[in-house]
């Protein structure tokens, strides 16, 4: 799968089917889009508090659980103060 090429060793945002958002450094992947994330943190969104980050460490996520993987732009990332962000969590996938 040529399409995950280029994300390795980059900080990425991973959205899972259950709506969780995890950021971390992509350490590796395979053809089934299973993904290894290092230094990963879950970002918990809510309407009544800023974004909470929970340390998760080294994570192996199964490919069939993945919705989206986005490359984080470090400069944009720095410019955002997560504690000021209020948002509903991302919806889970519904078939």
């Amino acid at each position: 799968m040529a399409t995950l090429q280029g994300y390795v060793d980059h900080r990425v945002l991973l959205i899972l089917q259950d709506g969780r958002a995890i950021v971390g450094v992509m350490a590796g992947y395979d053809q089934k889009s299973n993904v290894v994330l290092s230094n990963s943190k879950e970002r918990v969104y809510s309407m009544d508090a800023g974004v909470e980050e929970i340390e998760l460490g080294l994570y192996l996520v199964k490919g069939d659980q993945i919705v989206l993987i986005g490359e984080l732009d470090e400069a944009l990332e720095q410019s955002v103060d997560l504690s000021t962000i209020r948002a509903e969590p991302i919806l889970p996938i519904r078939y």
Partner: protein
Amino acid sequence: MLPLSLLNAAQNKPMLVELKNGETFNGHLVNCDNFMNITLREVYQTSADGDKFWKLKECYIRGSTIKYLRVPDTLLDAVKEEQTRAREAGRSARGAHVSGAGNRGRGMPQRGRGAMRGGPIRGGRGRGRGM
């Protein structure tokens, strides 16, 4: 680095496994295969809502039911190191026409499993615990 190399290197290490239904399993990895089917020992199972617990001596989890695995941070460096060593061993073996001597000593696979893929990365740490 391939996800399955990380999982293979996690044998005998503690890990947390969450299933698609939200149940979690905390235990030590006994064995795994390329489908990510795994067996754990000394397991604490937690229900999806987190209010029920069970202790299991050993359990088998089908890979297709897994959402994610959480493994010790130290494994990443261990796997990377191993890969570098395997690469160097491979290179020197090719260069000097010495048939993989560097690789050989480090516990090449005793069992058939895993011979299909992955080349010199496999073998070595933490395997060979008969099930």
